[in-house]
C-alpha cells in the first residue's frame, strides 16, 4: 500500500529502513535485558527481584483468600469447638489463646511521652535516705557477716513461652544452677518476668528493673545482674568483696581495651555488680538515654558503631553504650569502676567448654579463673529464640555440659555425680552410712564459711 503512495523504489527503501530499525530496536532491547539479568539496574532491581515481586503479588492474592479460608476453618473448629476446648492433649495447644490483657479497674500511671526519656524522678540524696533507713531497720543490715555485703542476684526471662521448644527447659536449668550457687553463698535471687518499661525493651530492660530494685531494697548492698544464658560453673568460689570496697561497679573486662582501644567487647554487661548508692543511680541515668526503642536507639547505634572498635552495625545495646560512656567520661566514672579480669565474672563459653575434662583432671573448684571458671556465659546462643549466632547442636550440648559441670559440685555434697558431663543420669560416689555427720563432702560446700551467719544472731 505504501507503494501506491510513495512509488515502488521509495517504498522499498522505506521498508528496508523499517526493517533495520525494527532489528536495531529488537537487539537493543535484548541487550538491555541480558545486561539487566546479569548486572541489575540499580534500584530497579534484577529480574530475579521482579520475579519475586510477581510471585509475591500472586501469593498475596492467594493470601487474601487465605485468611478467609483460615477463618472458615476456625469457625468450623469452634462449632465442633467444645470437643476441642475439652482437649486434654498438651501437644497442640496454642498459648496465645489464653494470654490476654484485661482492665481490672486499677488505674494506670503512664510516663509523660512529651518529656525526654528518664528512668524516674531524679533522686539526689539516696545515700542519706538509705543510711537513715538502715539505722531504723537493724533487722535488715546491709552486711550479713564480716566483710560480706547483702547481695541480690537478679536475672530474668520473658513471661511468654520461648519460641524454641526446648528454650524453657534450658531457662529452668539455668535458674536451678543459680539457685544452687546462691543458696551456698547466702545470696538472694530475684527472677524477673515483667517488662517494666516497654520503651526499654530487649537488652535495655534491665535498667529500669535495676533502678527499681535498688530503690525498693535499701538493705541490698550489691545488686548482681546475671543474664539468663550465664551459668555458674564454680560453686566454691566466693566473690572477693573486700577488693571492691572502694568501687561501685564491677564488670569483667580489661582497662586497655576500654580506655585505650574503645573496643566494644572490652567489657561484658551480662554479669556485673552494682552497689546500691547515689553514684549508681547517677550512672544508670547516664546510661539510659541511648536505650529508648525506635529512632533514638537506631541513631545511638550509628554513633556507637562509628566510635567503638569492631562494633557491627545494629541498634544501640547496653554494653556498647557503657563502653562509650567509660571511654569518653573516664574522669567522671572511671575511679569507681573496677574492670575485673582475674577471675571469670563473665566467661565466654567458646573458649571454656571444651576444657572441662582437662579442668577436672588438673584442678579443683575454688579458683574462679581459667583453671575453673566461675561463670560460663553462653553469649550468642539465644536458646529461647529460634535462631542464635551459633549452631544449635553445639550450643545446647555445651549448655548441658556446663550445667552438669556445675551440678556435679552440688551433687557431690550428697554423694552423687553425673555419669558423664553429657549425661542426665547420676551415680553414687559415696555409700550411705549410719554416721552421716562424720562424713564431710570433698569440697566442704555443705557448711561453707561463706554461708555462715554472724555469730550471735540466732
Amino acid at each position, binding site marked *: 500500500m*505504501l507503494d501506491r503512495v510513495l512509488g515502488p523504489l521509495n517504498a522499498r527503501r522505506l*521498508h*528496508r529502513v523499517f*526493517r*533495520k530499525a*525494527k532489528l536495531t530496536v*529488537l537487539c537493543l532491547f535484548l541487550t538491555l535485558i541480558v545486561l539487566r539479568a546479569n548486572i541489575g539496574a540499580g534500584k530497579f532491581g*534484577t529480574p*530475579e527481584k521482579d520475579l519475586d515481586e510477581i510471585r509475591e503479588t500472586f501469593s498475596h492474592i492467594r493470601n487474601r483468600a487465605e485468611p478467609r479460608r483460615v477463618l472458615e476453618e476456625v469457625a468450623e473448629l469452634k462449632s465442633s469447638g467444645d470437643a476441642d*476446648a*475439652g*482437649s*486434654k*492433649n*498438651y501437644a497442640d*495447644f496454642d498459648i496465645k489463646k*489464653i494470654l490476654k*490483657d*484485661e*482492665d*481490672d479497674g486499677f488505674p*494506670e500511671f503512664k510516663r509523660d511521652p512529651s518529656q525526654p526519656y528518664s528512668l524516674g*524522678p531524679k*533522686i539526689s540524696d539516696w545515700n542519706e535516705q538509705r543510711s537513715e533507713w538502715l539505722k531504723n531497720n537493724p*533487722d535488715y543490715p546491709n552486711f550479713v557477716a564480716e566483710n560480706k555485703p547483702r547481695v541480690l542476684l537478679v536475672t530474668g*526471662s520473658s513471661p*511468654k513461652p*520461648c519460641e*524454641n*521448644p*526446648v528454650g*524453657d527447659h534450658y531457662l*529452668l536449668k539455668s*535458674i*536451678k544452677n543459680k*539457685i*544452687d550457687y546462691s*543458696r551456698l553463698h547466702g545470696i538472694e535471687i530475684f*527472677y524477673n*518476668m515483667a517488662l*517494666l518499661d516497654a520503651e526499654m525493651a530487649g537488652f535495655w530492660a534491665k535498667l529500669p528493673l535495676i533502678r527499681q530494685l535498688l*530503690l*525498693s531494697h*535499701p538493705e541490698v548492698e550489691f545488686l548482681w545482674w546475671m543474664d539468663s544464658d550465664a551459668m555458674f560453673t564454680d560453686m566454691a568460689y566466693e566473690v572477693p568483696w573486700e577488693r571492691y570496697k572502694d568501687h561501685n561497679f564491677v564488670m569483667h573486662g580489661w582497662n586497655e581495651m576500654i580506655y585505650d582501644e574503645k573496643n566494644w567487647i572490652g567489657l561484658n554487661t551480662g554479669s556485673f555488680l552494682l552497689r546500691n548508692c547515689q553514684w549508681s543511680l547517677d550512672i544508670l541515668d547516664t546510661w539510659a538515654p541511648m536505650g529508648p526503642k525506635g529512632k533514638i536507639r537506631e541513631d545511638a547505634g550509628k554513633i556507637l558503631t562509628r566510635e567503638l572498635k569492631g562494633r557491627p552495625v545494629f541498634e544501640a545495646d547496653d554494653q556498647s553504650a557503657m563502653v562509650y560512656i567509660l571511654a569518653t567520661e573516664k574522669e567522671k566514672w572511671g575511679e569507681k569502676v573496677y574492670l575485673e579480669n582475674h577471675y571469670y565474672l563473665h566467661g565466654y563459653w567458646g573458649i571454656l567448654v571444651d576444657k572441662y575434662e582437662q579442668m577436672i583432671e588438673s584442678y579443683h573448684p575454688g579458683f574462679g579463673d581459667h583453671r575453673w571458671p566461675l561463670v560460663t556465659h553462653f553469649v550468642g546462643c539465644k536458646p529461647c529464640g529460634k535462631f542464635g549466632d551459633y549452631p544449635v*547442636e553445639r550450643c545446647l550440648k555445651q549448655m548441658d555440659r556446663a550445667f552438669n559441670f556445675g*551440678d556435679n559440685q552440688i551433687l557431690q555434697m550428697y554423694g*552423687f555425680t553425673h*555419669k558423664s558431663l*553429657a*549425661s*542426665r543420669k*547420676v551415680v553414687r560416689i559415696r555409700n*550411705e552410712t*549410719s554416721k*552421716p*555427720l562424720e562424713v564431710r563432702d570433698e569440697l566442704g560446700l555443705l*557448711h561453707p*564459711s561463706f554461708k555462715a*551467719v554472724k555469730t550471735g544472731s*540466732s
Partner: protein
Amino acid sequence: MGSGGAFPAQKRSSGVLPMVNGGARGRAAPLLPRGRQIHKTFHNVKITILCGFVTILVLRGTIGIGSLVTSEADAENQHLIEETNRIIAEIRSDRDPSDPDEGPERFLGLNDTFSLGPRISNWDEDRKVWLEKNPRFPSYVNGKPRILLVTGSQPTPCDNAIGDHYLLKALKNKIDYCRIHGIEIMYNMAHLDKEMTGYWAKLPLLRRLMLSHPEVEWIWWMDSDALFTDMVFEIPVSKYKDYNMVIHGYPDLLFEQKSWISLNTGSFLFRNCQWSLDLMDAWAPMGPKGPLREEAGKILTANLKGRPAFEADDQSALIYLFLSQKEQWMSKVYVENSFYLHGFWEGLVDQYEEMIEKYHPGLGDARWPFVTHFVGCKPCGSYGDYPVERCLKSMERAFNFADNQVLNLYGFRHRGLASPNIKRIRNETVAPLVNVDQFDIRHAARHTTEPQS
C-alpha cells in the same frame, strides 16, 4: 520477525513481489530458485538459534538454573528447621549417648526388702551435738526455725514446651515466696534412686537432705505443680512445736472414711528428727518399682475408699500407714486444714477476682488460699486429667494473682489475671523508702501481730 534485514540483496532480487517483509514468507517460496531457498533456510535457522540463545541467556539471568519454585534461602531454612527438630527430639528422649542400655531392668522381688539406707537410731542426739559444735549454722535464725523448701522436676525436657514454661513460672513463684520469708530452696532434677521413681523419688531425696543438713529444722516438700497464692501468709510454726509432721487433710475423711485423698502429700512439712527418719523407713517399702509397687497398689485399693486400681503411690501409702499404725504415728502428726497448705485448684481459681475485691493477702484459707495446687493437670506430660485450656488458663491466673502481690512493692500490677504484661499503678517518687515501709511484705508483717491459730 525481521529476517529480511540480513539479506537485503535477496529481497531486492525478489522485489517484484509487493511484500513488506518479503523473502522468507511462504507465498514467495515456490517461485525461488533452489539455492536461494537453501540460503533462506539457513538464514532462518541461524536466526532461530540466535533467538534461542538469547532467550536462554535472558531466562538464566532472571530465574536461574535449578528449581523454579524454591530459592536457595528457603532450602537452607528448611534444613535448619529439620536439624533443630532432630536435636530437640534427641534431647527430649531419655536416651543417653554416653550411656548405652545397661541391660534389662531388674526389679526387687516380693521377698526382697528395700531400705533407704543403713538404719540410724541416734539422730536426735547426733544432731544436737553437731549444732552445739557449729554455732555459725544454727537451726533458728532471727527467732524463726530454718526451713528448707524442696521441689523438683524430671531431668529431661517436658513432652511439650508449655510444660517447661509452667515449671519455670512455678519455680519463680516459689523463689519469690521464699525470698520474702527467708526460706531456702532446693530444686532437684536428679533421679537419686533407680527403684524409688516417680512420686516416690521424694523419699530418698528428703532423707538425704535431712542427714546432710542438720541445721535445717523443718523440711517442706512441695510439688512442682503447686503455686503460692498468698505471699503474705506465713506458716504458724509455733503451733507445731509438739509435732513432727504437718500435712493438709481432714481427720474425719482419714479415720472414719479411710478415703485415699484424705491427706495430700503434695505440700507437707516434717521436722528433722529421729521420728521422721523412722517414718520414712516405714513409708518406703511400698515404693520400689516393679512387683513390690504393684502388689502394694492392690492392697491400697482394697483398703482405701475411692482409690482406683493402679500401682502404689506415696500418698495412699502414707494414709494406709497412718491408719494401720495409728497409735505409733498420729500423736506427732498435725492434720492441718485451717489454712490451705494444699489447696485443690478447681474450687479456687475462679474466685480470685472476688477475693481481690472482698479480702486481702495474709489469710491463707478459703478467703485467700495459701497454696493453689494443680493436681491432675500434669502440664509436663502429654495428657492431663483435665482439659488443657482450663488447666493452663488457671495456672496463668494463679501465677499472676501471686505475682501481683510481689510486684506491688515495685508499683506494678498485671493487666488482668490472664495477662503476662504489667502496668504501673503507683507513680515514682523521690522518697521511695516511704513506699518500701508500707508495701514490702516483710516490713509490713513485722508490724502486725502473729496470726491466730
